[in-house]
């Protein structure tokens, strides 16, 4: 019956998770621009308007419009368009005839910066497009300050929640055993300390992140603090701070009510522990809501996985910290007895949480990584490998503890063998210290991981790529089905007009009347796909001039070549465009 009930609850949870609306993938992407990218306007525009796939906070948006000399021509700051929440507009001065570069950077819902650029011209005869220099703003959410404060916040929060769970569930039998008041108080104090660190780290992290978004120095607090709750990301993390404060009150009440000597909890103690549990559950849900799980489809499932992942991590990390505090705070004579009671209980909980950690981590990685190759080709994948390696090492230490220290402790407690017991405690302490350090490293890898954008979904198409071209102008020949296809990209630079050309020849003769489409996908980050048809400008030469490579980086060009009377030819090249 019990098992049936559990399975039922799991099914209901899964159904709820899957029933939550699934969001579209990834980061904010630019859907439309006014003026049109690379278009030539008869009349100068009064504003530049950018429409995104999600609501963008204009206060964190940077839109620069420069002329061919690099002079700013914007006449104000970006603002939300009055008729559409997903669009932002920036006014421009009266623009004389010529070419202009629009460079933008906005903050996605998960706090990651997304940028791009395009050009437009004011006619009637703007002349040839100049070579614009794209401002390189090497920012990302993975700066040392941001990753460091995020790491401390995550680690302190997980340790605090885990320590409270350790104190009130795993180590609770010590309460009845007697003589362990000091040690248990030590664990409670450690939980309080970790909470205090988290309560300081959260605002620090928020200030650093908001400073990064608004491109201000973090010391400019008067300007930054009012902006903190202007991003979805900032709202979620300031709510996390409030929830952690509530957790501090509830956990304090719960620990105060569970008095030593009582074998069973009183009704009040039970109510209080439920309150603290609710606070912990809420706190563990918030990092996911401010991060990738909330923008990765299926959202409900990803949020549930993230919650389980964090809950399992907190039990493991808090338990290890609890064991260390317990060992240090117990009198040497009572250590063996104390640990012999607690270690087996912790081992069981840790094994369960490791299983949950692995299962949820693996499923989330499969969803986030479009290809297996992305695991070693992208920095996101490398951070994931580092995290997995650290966790594996920690698991090995845990296994040694389980196989060596635990039986020795039990034997020493039973035989009252002081020498064997001291050795077992020393071994346990060393291994737990090592395991804690490795786990702290794994949380650091997780902090880096969650600061990096997951690889673009276009990477999934890379496997079938026919070759790599660029940087610099491209002229490469492929032979497919007896047709010589010469791929040309001139001059292959970002944000300006590029000529995308194909020369088709078969048996030395030009292939005429082919229908050619080219699809462009940005590989370094998630952006909207673009598709163009190439026009036959001379026999066998098909070309289209577009500023389609809107930014520096890797682009996947997928050509579909339909020649009358034969099956379509597909050709994919990865192009690297420079600024």
């Amino acid at each position, binding site marked *: 019956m019990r098992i049936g009930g559990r399975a039922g609850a799991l099914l209901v949870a899964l159904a709820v998770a899957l029933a939550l*609306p699934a969001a579209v993938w990834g980061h904010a992407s630019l859907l439309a621009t006014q003026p049109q990218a690379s278009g030539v306007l008869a009349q100068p525009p009064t504003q530049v308007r950018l429409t995104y796939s999600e609501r963008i906070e204009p206060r964190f948006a940077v839109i620069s419009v420069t002329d061919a000399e690099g002079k700013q021509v914007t006449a104000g700051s970006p603002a939300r368009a009055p008729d559409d929440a997903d669009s932002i507009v920036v006014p421009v001065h009266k623009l004389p005839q010529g070419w202009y570069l629009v460079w933008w950077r906005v903050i996605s819902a998960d706090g990651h910066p997304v940028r791009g650029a395009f050009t437009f011209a004011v006619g009637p005869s703007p002349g040839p497009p100049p070579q614009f220099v794209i401002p390189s703003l090497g920012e990302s959410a993975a700066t040392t300050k941001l990753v460091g404060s995020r790491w401390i916040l995550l680690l302190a929060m997980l340790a605090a929640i885990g320590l409270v769970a350790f104190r009130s569930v795993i180590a609770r039998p010590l309460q009845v055993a007697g003589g362990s008041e000091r040690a248990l108080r030590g664990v409670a104090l450690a939980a309080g300390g970790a909470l205090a660190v988290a309560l300081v780290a959260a605002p620090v992290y928020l200030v650093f992140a908001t400073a990064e978004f608004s491109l201000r120095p973090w010391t400019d607090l008067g300007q930054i603090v009012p902006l903190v709750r202007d991003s979805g990301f900032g709202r979620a993390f300031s*709510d996390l701070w409030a929830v952690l404060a509530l957790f501090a009150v*509830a956990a304090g*009440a719960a620990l105060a009510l569970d008095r030593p000597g009582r074998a069973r909890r009183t009704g009040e103690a039970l109510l209080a522990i*439920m*309150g603290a549990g609710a606070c912990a*559950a809420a706190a563990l849900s918030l990092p996911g809501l401010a991060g990738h799980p909330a923008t990765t489809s299926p959202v409900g499932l990803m949020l549930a996985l993230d919650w389980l992942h964090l809950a399992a991590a907190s039990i493991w990390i808090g338990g290890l910290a609890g064991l260390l505090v317990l060992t240090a705070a117990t009198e040497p004579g009572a250590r063996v007895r104390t640990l012999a009671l607690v270690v087996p209980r912790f081992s069981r909980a840790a094994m369960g949480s490791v299983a949950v950690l692995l299962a949820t981590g693996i499923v989330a990685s499969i969803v986030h990584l479009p290809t297996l190759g992305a695991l070693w080709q992208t920095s996101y994948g490398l951070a994931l490998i580092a995290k997995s390696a650290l966790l594996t090492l920690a698991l090995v230490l845990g296994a040694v503890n389980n196989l060596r220290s635990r039986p020795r402790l039990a034997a020493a407690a039973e035989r009252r063998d002081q020498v064997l017991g001291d050795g077992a405690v020393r071994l346990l302490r060393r291994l737990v210290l090592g395991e804690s350090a490795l786990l702290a490293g794994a949380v650091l890898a997780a902090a880096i991981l969650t600061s990096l954008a997951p690889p673009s979904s276009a990477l999934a198409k890379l496997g079938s790529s026919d070759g790599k071209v660029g940087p610099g102008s491209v002229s490469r020949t492929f032979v497919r089905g007896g047709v010589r296809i010469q791929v040309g990209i001139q001059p292959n630079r970002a944000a300006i007009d590029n000529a995308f050309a194909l020369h088709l020849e078969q048996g030395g003769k030009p292939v005429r009347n082919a229908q050619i489409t080219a699809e462009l996908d940005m590989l370094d980050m998630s952006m909207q796909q673009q598709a163009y048809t190439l026009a036959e400008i001379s026999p066998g030469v098909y070309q289209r001039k577009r500023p389609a490579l809107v930014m520096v980086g890797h682009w996947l060009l997928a050509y579909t070549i339909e020649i009358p009377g034969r099956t379509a030819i597909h050709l994919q090249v990865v192009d690297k465009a420079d600024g």
Partner: protein
Amino acid sequence: MSTRDLLLALLALLCGAAALMLAALVIAATV
């Protein structure tokens, strides 16, 4: 069973309810 214990338990429960409500608000705004 003292009044102090009962008040402490109620305070903890209240904190739990407030925390869950905050999380629910964030979920409603995000998803």
